[in-house]
């Protein structure tokens, strides 16, 4: 095409006009948007195919990358990674981590210079990379286990870098060796678990069928009833499974989104901002709860006026700000409830159960705010990650001062042990909630301020004190 060429808007060659919400042209009644009203930059929906048991050599992420543009550096990196592993064992590497970074792998323990306690820690610590139980939901997805959280890797990267002066290449070698070792031993464990599971299912089916046959022999009506019940059970199971499946897909999509955005925001002018923005936009436009926010956002920052990096900024400032404040509200409310219930409840067991239930609910709610809506397994997965996050970053965050502020000073003098227990519980809830927020957010915190434990903690103390005072007054 030559510069200066012009086309009539009715020309069939025109594929689409970018919608910028202002609809200047459409206001004249001229439909110029062609056949597709959608922005054609929208990538195909990122629906991962959940891997089948046994076919574990493909990570869930490979099909998604094929869906996105092939020249994206992320995609080539990933496929290249999964291709050259011995035995096709899946590895799950966060896209934005350079391959030469030794601490990028989530098996960071061996990077610690050999010390007396290292071996013990290594032995006792449950490595996040290992499917340890014959768990039917975890087992078919070994790839998921490999990439639990970068935060873990980072947290330990920080500590290891501080502790040891080991050179990068050395630890990388060590890591590779360790990885190979682990992969060998766990591969056969996985095979064992899968075969046992399959055997169990086969036996179950056979047993059910023979039971049915026997029932039919006994009485036709009973047999019909039983098969009806069985059918219903199978259907409901199918629905449950598909729902879980979709929820897991949503979560993995969100993780993928996060990887894209983190890569795009890692530096000024980093590539991939276009893909990341398109993916984020598509994902949130698809959900009813956030569609209007996205529509507003598109009008505010149309894609033909703002660069993708700028739009990511606007998205965080305009759309995520609202979601963030919703999430913080949920977290605060939950922390307050937990603290108060723990303070006034007479039974320790009740506290524990209540706290657990509330926290699970909170995590689900926070995830739902960000459009993840996890199913049961998703919640468990999230809970595990959140706990890992809290445990790993908790030590560092102790310097946050919130707890010190709570436990020291004149306030403590007047607090009963029960009240301080309640506050600690509330703080734990708040921390869990913030970690969940971190996990579910499609973008890393960059332009919005990350809500801090001390913010919530300060208000928590006030709220709890007020409610206690009130109850005292009533008495």
């Amino acid at each position, binding site marked *: *095409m*030559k*510069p*200066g*060429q*012009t*086309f*009539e*808007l009715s*020309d069939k*060659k*025109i*594929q*689409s*006009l*970018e919608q*910028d919400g*202002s609809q*200047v*042209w459409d*206001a*004249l009644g*001229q439909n*110029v948007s062609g056949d597709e009203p959608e922005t*054609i930059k929208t990538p195909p929906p990122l629906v991962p195919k959940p891997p089948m048991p046994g076919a574990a050599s493909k990570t869930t992420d490979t099909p998604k990358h094929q869906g996105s543009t092939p020249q994206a550096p992320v995609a080539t990196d990933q496929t290249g990674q999964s291709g050259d592993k011995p035995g096709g064992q899946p590895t799950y590497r966060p896209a934005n981590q350079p391959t030469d970074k030794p601490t990028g792998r989530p098996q960071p323990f061996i990077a610690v210079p050999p010390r007396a306690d290292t071996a013990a820690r290594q032995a006792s610590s449950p490595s996040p990379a290992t499917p340890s139980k014959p768990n039917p939901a975890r087992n078919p997805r070994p790839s998921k286990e490999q990439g639990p959280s970068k935060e873990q890797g980072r947290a330990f990267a920080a500590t290891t870098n501080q502790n040891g002066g080991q050179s990068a290449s050395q630890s990388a070698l060590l890591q590779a060796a360790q990885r190979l070792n682990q992969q060998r031993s766990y591969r056969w464990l996985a095979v064992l678990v899968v075969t046992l599971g399959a055997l169990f299912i086969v036996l179950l089916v056979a047993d059910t069928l023979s039971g049915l046959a026997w029932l039919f022999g006994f009485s036709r009506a009973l047999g019909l009833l039983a098969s009806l019940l069985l059918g219903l059970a199978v259907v409901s199971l199918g629905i449950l499974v598909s729902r879980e499946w979709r929820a897991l897909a949503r979560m993995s999509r969100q993780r993928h989104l996060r990887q894209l955005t983190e890569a795009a925001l890692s530096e000024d002018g980093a590539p991939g901002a276009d893909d990341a923005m398109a993916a984020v936009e598509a994902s949130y436009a698809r959900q009813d709860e956030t569609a209007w926010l996205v529509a507003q956002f598109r009008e*505010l*920052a*149309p*894609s*033909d*006026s*703002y*660069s993708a990096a*700028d739009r990511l*900024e*606007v998205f965080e*400032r*305009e759309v995520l700000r609202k979601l963030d404040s919703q999430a913080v509200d949920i977290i605060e409310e939950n922390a307050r409830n937990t603290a108060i219930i723990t303070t006034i409840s007479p039974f320790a067991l009740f506290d524990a159960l209540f706290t657990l239930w509330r926290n699970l609910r909170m995590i689900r709610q926070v995830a739902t705010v960000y459009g993840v809506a996890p199913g049961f397994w998703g919640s468990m997965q999230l809970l595990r990650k959140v706990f890992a996050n809290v445990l790993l970053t908790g030590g560092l965050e102790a310097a946050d001062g919130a707890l010190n502020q709570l436990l020291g000073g004149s306030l403590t003098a007047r607090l009963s042990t029960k009240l301080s227990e309640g506050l600690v519980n509330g703080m734990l809830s708040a921390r869990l909630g913030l970690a969940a927020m971190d996990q579910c957010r499609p973008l890393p915190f960059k332009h919005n301020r990350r809500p801090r434990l001390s913010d919530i903690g300060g208000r928590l103390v006030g709220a709890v004190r007020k409610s206690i005072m009130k109850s005292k007054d009533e008495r």
Partner: protein
Amino acid sequence: MDSIRPTLQSASVLQRSHAGVGALLSGVRDQITSPFSEPTLRLGVTGLSRSGKTVFITSLVHNILTARRFPLFQASAQGRLTAAVLRPQPNLDLPRFAYEANIDGLLGGQPVWPESTWRLSQLRLTISYKPTSLLKRAMPGPHLLNLDLIDYPGEWLLDLPLLTLDFADWSDQVLAAAKQPARKPYARPWLEALGQLDLNGDHDERVYIELAQLYTNYLRACRQKNLMIAQLQPGRFLMPGDLEGSPSLTFCPVPRPRGNLSKSGFFATCTQRYEAYKKHVVRPFFRDHFSKLDRQIVLTDLLGAAAAGPAAVEDLQAAMTTVLQAFRPGANSWLSKLFRGRRIDKMLFASTKADHLPRAQHDRLARLLGELAFEPANNARFRGADVSFMALSAIKSTRLAKVREQGKVYDCITGWIAGQQQPKAFYPGELPDSLAELKRGIDAPLAQVRFMPPPNLDHQQQGLPHIGLDRSLEFLLGDLLS
């Protein structure tokens, strides 16, 4: 080309006119009264003719008054801009900027761009905002910021180098340039008339008028072709303002005469008029309007130059370098304000008409501008000013479209091309990656057409669509509204 770049003296000429006891006193007065008076920002909108100054000011004012389409302008995005109003301007002897007429023209039934500016005008926009800084919040409100804007014909900017040149030197430069092959065809009538002139003849005003007219025609032709724009001097010949026909605009460059000349000869008279022009036109213009700027945005029509060819790009670069020598960038502190007068502490270089290019190329456009303005930008940075480059379209008159042809997808822009009834898609071509390539000439040169503002530009009453206006305001005003 080097010869026409003025030396650094030009800056000092202005400084000399500004410095001295009076300036020091006024600096002291400003310093003492500033905490009690409303803070005022003099924003210098600098740009050669047709770089979009008027449109920029119009869109800026309209969008701040409505304040809705600024997601990257933090004060607006965070809802801290409470209101903005147009208030009486400080200089009572200047015409008011015709904001209402311009915006009516843009939003009317037959939308048109504002007419080209032919004289100075001024506008004061007062912004009321909620500050974020603790110190300001402790002060009783309302917190106001006056934004003083000045519009003027871009042609006048190019007069600055004249301040350091005497008539004979200037004439030599102009004549040398006029004899270059690209410009010669346009200069021929004037040069021929000059050749037949009897330099020592009796004074006949008609000769002056005729020659000045021929010279003006030559300048006009050059401007039309985007040739030699750094040397379209004197600027008032092209845009006389209210001086049309006065003797200080009735002269032209004359070859340096050999031997002795009578004092009443053609050369001597032209010299006199040239000096008068410098004294009464150029110097006051810069002294009154450019020596006290706080912030500056330099608008550049790089796209137009790129479409016109390598020579135009060279000329644009020369013109920018020349013009920007007049300004005094540098970091401000209260002490330096007292003793040196104000400095421009933030400079934004913007390549306008970015809506004539698909968004994917905007980064490249800004990068090319960075290369083009490297010298003045570097100078400003060296003196401590903040410098930034971006692609800007104060009013976005087009939209993006994808056109598939022979299996490839091209980014096109659609809009109302001037003189056509229906919107059309238009393929502008690709910018090269570097300035060197642009100067060498590219195989498939960039095409440019004039897009008219689309109808119903502000149909939702949410401000005019734009590209990058909020980002540039954040850079220019953001810290003052915090």
